[in-house]
C-alpha cells in the first residue's frame, strides 16, 4: 500500500497542520452572526424602578 511509505509522512503532517491552523480558522471565524432583529410592538415596554444608586 503506497500510503505506508514513510517518506512523505513528516512533510504531510507539517503541511496539514499549517493549513489547519492558519488558513481554515481565519476563514471560519470571519463569519459573524448579527443578533436577530426583535419584532417591534406598539406597547411601551414596562420599566420597573431599580433599587441601586444611579452612578
Amino acid at each position, binding site marked *: 500500500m*503506497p*500510503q505506508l511509505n514513510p517518506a512523505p509522512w513528516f512533510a*504531510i503532517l507539517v*503541511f496539514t497542520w499549517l493549513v489547519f491552523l492558519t*488558513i*481554515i*480558522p481565519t*476563514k471560519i471565524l470571519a*463569519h459573524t*452572526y448579527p443578533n436577530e432583529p426583535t419584532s417591534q410592538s406598539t406597547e411601551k415596554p414596562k420599566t420597573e424602578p431599580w433599587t441601586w444608586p444611579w452612578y
Partner: protein
Amino acid sequence: MMLSFFDQFMSPTYLGIPLMALALTLPWVLYPTPSARWLNNRFLALQGWFINRFTQQLLLPLSLGGHKWAALLTSLMIFLITINMLGLLPYTFTPTTQLSLNLGLAVPLWLATVLIGMRNQPTHALGHLLPEGTPGPLIPVLIIIETISLFIRPLALGVRLTANLTAGHLLIQLIATAAFVLLPLMPVVAILTSTVLVLLTLLEVAVAMIQAYVFVLLLSLYLQENV
C-alpha cells in the same frame, strides 16, 4: 513496473512539486473570507448557515469547558468534508486517503483531550477506566481492557477515515474498470455495471460526509469525557 490499483494513492509529485501541497491549499479557494460588509452573497450565506448550525449541534452535548474547542472542531469538519467531497471528482487526489494525514490529525487531537482531562480532573478522567457496577473480581481485567481501548482510539480514528475513503476510491476504480473492459464484449452487463457504479458513487458521497462527521463527533465525545 506494473500499474496496480493502489497506485492512485501514491503521494504524487509533478515536476518536483508535491501535489499533496496543492491538494491541501487549493480547496480553500472555495470558501471566500467574509468581509466586514453586512450583506453577503448566497454562497457565503449558505456557508455561514452551515457553520453556525453545525457548531450549535456539535456543542449541544459538550459542557462549557468544551466550548473552547468550537473553532477547532468546526475547522476540522470543514477541512475533512471539503477534502473528502472534492476527492470524489475524477482525476483528483484525496489527501485523506493518506494514513499519515489522518493519524497526524487524530493522534495530537486525541492526546490533547486526554492531557486536558489528566491535568484538570485526573480522578474523573481515570474513573472512565472502570465502568459503574462492575463485579469485584472483574475489576483488574476491565481496567486493562479499558486502557487498551483508550489507547486504540487515535488509531481507530485515523484508520477508520483512511480505510473508508481508500476502500471507496478503490471500489470506484475497480467497477469503472470492469464497466470499461466489458463494454465491447457484453454491453448489457456493462450497462448494469455502470448502474452499480452510479449507485456506488452516491454511496461514496454519503460516506465522505458521514466519515468526516464521525471523526469530529467522536473527538467531541472524547473531549466531553475529559472536560
